[in-house]
């Protein structure tokens, strides 16, 4: 936001004049013409408000005109594929202009508010920790979760809810939930690679595909069951990750991204063209998993339906898949959480922040990166096996670049590196299109728009990751006020500098009005 600096942000207390308050000339992304810089001199007066409202109105009008011109050929002249002529659809133009007008007003208002909040947080950062009560963005209810009893209660409730789902919902809901859980697994796996280790992988779909095809092919050709194939699928994805990772991990950032992208395309094209995968037609009739060989739908289902325990159309094989993927997600969460705080996890974080410093500290760069890459692939393989078991029919069309993009969006929208963030992100991105099905024509349009808006207005994600930081609390050391003791080594590794990673002020630091502890302030 370069525009923020030019704006004289009024103090929050006086800025209560509705949408038109605040100085014009801030973020004007859409108005094409000269910015309506009729900056009213007299702030605060009724005339000033009116002038500002007029300026907003003018900007929105200009932008409506701009978008009308921009959209004219595509919106109003439609090529008729049947007759080979042009349909003129002038009626669409006023609607589009009205939409652009309203959207501009909303956009400018939101962008201005965003500018203020960024200025405010910047001010808060330089002024030291906030006073009690004033918490950073997303503070209140998130910090509530940090309290252990509340957290445990919530977790238990969520677990109970998820475990009971198949017994009171329709098969449709279970199917959607399985999909959402598969994406959560994928998101958590990619989170290790992208969020924690900072390696941009745009070809995650390839490892998912390898897991799915491993199961499908072994099942078709050798009749191997789900339970043997689950580790085998994960293993083959891991091996592929290692194989690809070894040569390419010395590439940096964007080169890595494009190589993984290209690799995923290679895998997909090979699956399409090679004989034994049955090409674009895919593999059908993959056996669902079994539970100790029991015939779930034949023997167990009448019993359960008879007692009113499950929906009468429920496919119990699906229910089993649901429980399997639920267990995998739980396992993944535990693993990822443990990994993040392990020696390896801290090495990933450090490597993400500064490679050179890391190598100087004796961290093996290639081995650490390779571990992240291969581990991320493992989860994709696991998810792939479950995916094949769920839909019992796979073809290369399921593993396109869009899938990789979807998983990456889950990670970024949810909050990079944050486990609950990824889970929320997956739930939103998978469930949102389901609920938007009514507007199925506009579904993907809205989806794309939300991705852009989300990045503009909340780039840190829905639930930003919070790193474990050590916060300096003077009263614990018994020397009150903001007087850090240079003689106390425990207090020194606890400066607020470590908390700045996400721009999040440490919440609930009790009254340290004296500003940040600085060694020079002692004595």
């Amino acid at each position: 936001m370069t525009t923020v600096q030019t704006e004289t942000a009024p103090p929050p207390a006086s800025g209560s004049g509705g949408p038109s308050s605040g100085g014009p000339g801030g973020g004007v992304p859409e108005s094409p013409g000269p910015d309506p810089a009729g900056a009213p001199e007299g702030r605060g007066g009724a005339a000033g408000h009116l002038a500002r409202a007029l300026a907003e109105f003018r900007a929105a009008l200009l932008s409506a005109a701009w978008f009308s011109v921009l959209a004219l050929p595509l919106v109003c002249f439609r090529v008729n594929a049947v007759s080979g002529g042009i349909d003129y659809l002038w009626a669409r133009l006023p609607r589009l202009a009205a939409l652009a007008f309203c959207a501009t007003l909303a956009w400018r208002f939101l962008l201005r508010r965003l500018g203020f909040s960024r200025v405010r947080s910047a001010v808060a950062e330089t002024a030291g920790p906030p006073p009690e009560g004033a918490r950073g963005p997303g503070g209140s209810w998130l910090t509530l979760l940090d309290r252990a009893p509340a957290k445990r209660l919530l977790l238990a409730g969520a677990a109970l809810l998820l475990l009971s789902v198949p017994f009171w919902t329709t098969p449709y809901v279970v199917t959607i939930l399985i999909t959402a859980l598969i994406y959560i697994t994928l998101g958590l796996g990619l989170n290790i690679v992208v969020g924690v280790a900072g390696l941009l992988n745009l070809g995650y779909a390839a490892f998912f595909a390898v897991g799915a095809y491993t199961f499908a092919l072994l099942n078709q050709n050798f009749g191997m069951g789900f339970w043997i194939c689950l580790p085998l699928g994960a293993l083959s994805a891991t091996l592929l990750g290692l194989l690809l990772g070894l040569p390419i991990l010395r590439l940096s950032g964007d080169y890595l991204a494009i190589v993984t992208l290209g690799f995923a395309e290679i895998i997909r094209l090979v699956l399409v063209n090679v004989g034994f995968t049955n090409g674009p037609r895919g593999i059908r009739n993959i056996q669902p998993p079994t539970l100790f060989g029991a015939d779930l739908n034949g023997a167990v289902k009448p019993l359960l339906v008879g007692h009113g325990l499950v929906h009468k159309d429920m496919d119990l094989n699906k229910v089993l898949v649901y429980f399997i993927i639920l267990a995998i997600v739980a396992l993944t969460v535990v693993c990822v959480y443990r990994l993040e705080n392990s020696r390896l996890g801290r090495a990933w974080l450090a490597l993400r922040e500064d490679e050179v410093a890391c190598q100087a500290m004796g961290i093996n760069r290639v081995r650490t990166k390779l571990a992240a890459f291969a581990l991320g692939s493992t989860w994709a393989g696991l998810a792939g096996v479950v995916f094949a078991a769920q839909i019992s029919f796979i073809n290369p069309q399921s593993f396109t670049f869009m899938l990789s993009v979807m998983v990456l969006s889950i990670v970024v929208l949810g909050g990079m590196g944050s486990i609950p963030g990824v889970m929320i992100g997956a739930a939103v991105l998978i469930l949102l299109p389901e609920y938007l099905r009514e507007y199925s024509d506009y579904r993907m349009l809205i989806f794309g728009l939300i991705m852009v808006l989300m990045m503009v207005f909340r780039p840190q994600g829905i639930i930003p990751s919070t790193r474990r930081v050590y916060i300096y609390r003077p009263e614990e050391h018994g020397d009150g006020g903001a007087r850090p003791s240079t003689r106390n080594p425990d207090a020194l590794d606890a400066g607020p500098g470590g908390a700045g990673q996400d721009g999040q002020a440490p919440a609930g630091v009790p009254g340290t009005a004296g500003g940040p502890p600085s060694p020079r302030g002692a004595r």
Partner: protein
Amino acid sequence: MELFLNLCVSGLTKGSIYALIALGYTMVYGIIALINFAHGEIYMIGAFTALIFSMVLGAFGLSGWGLLFASGTLAVVYCAMYGWTLEKVAYKPLRGQSRLAPLISAIGMSIFLQNYVQLVQTPNVLSFPDLIPDIAILAGMRGVASKTQFAILAATAVSMVALTLFIKKTRIGMAMRAVSQDPTMARLSGVNIDKVISTTFIIGSMLAAVGGLLVGNYGRQMDFFIGFLAGMKAFTAAVLGGIGSIPGAVVGALVLGFAESFAAGYVSSDYEDVVAFVLLIAILTLRPDGIMGSATTQKV
């Protein structure tokens, strides 16, 4: 021998089109280090506007070279407008964020533009009319290259020369080079970064529009999804040559075009794309900074 010659010409043609699109990627990357995933969609919009304007203007009685140039110019202008707006809406508010935020925004914009065109136009495959009039001099060359191939080569050559002159000779071109070398220093010397970024997007989009028009004429059919594969190939070409480097993008695009064309001719057209991406991985493994990219040493 004739097959070899044909493959050379088709490789050159393909490479030229990739180059036109790849330049947009590489220029934007050079200036703000962003992979502009929506660039392929700009190219698709270029193809669509060219088709629409050629049909509308054709209904008004324009034909021949006049029709080609009029619809081409309009497509270029519209793509420039789209590129400019794209930057203002999706990337400018994100400046100063982490590297991934603009990337996701770009992917979102790409999905948005694809579905926008699909909604307001059609999800069906459209046929593109042959806009390039017959050229009498080329009649004897039919066996080697078609008039469309000649037109593509000529248009690409003209665009490249124009771009080179623009970058080397004009003031804003100099500013662009300065920003791509060192943004902070350029800003200190009074370069208007916003203007440079806008110009970069406009130029890249114009080149993509030329590519869209030519591909429409070459392949003769299109739909709202053509931007995806073209964008991916062009980006591959840009990376192959060393992203951020303008001559690199052209070299990379030509290498990619030739490789694909020979793979299609001598191996199988099924494996055309596989060869392209294997080549990418191979070259990047051997030369991590691309063919023309200079290795940067990180100083601490």
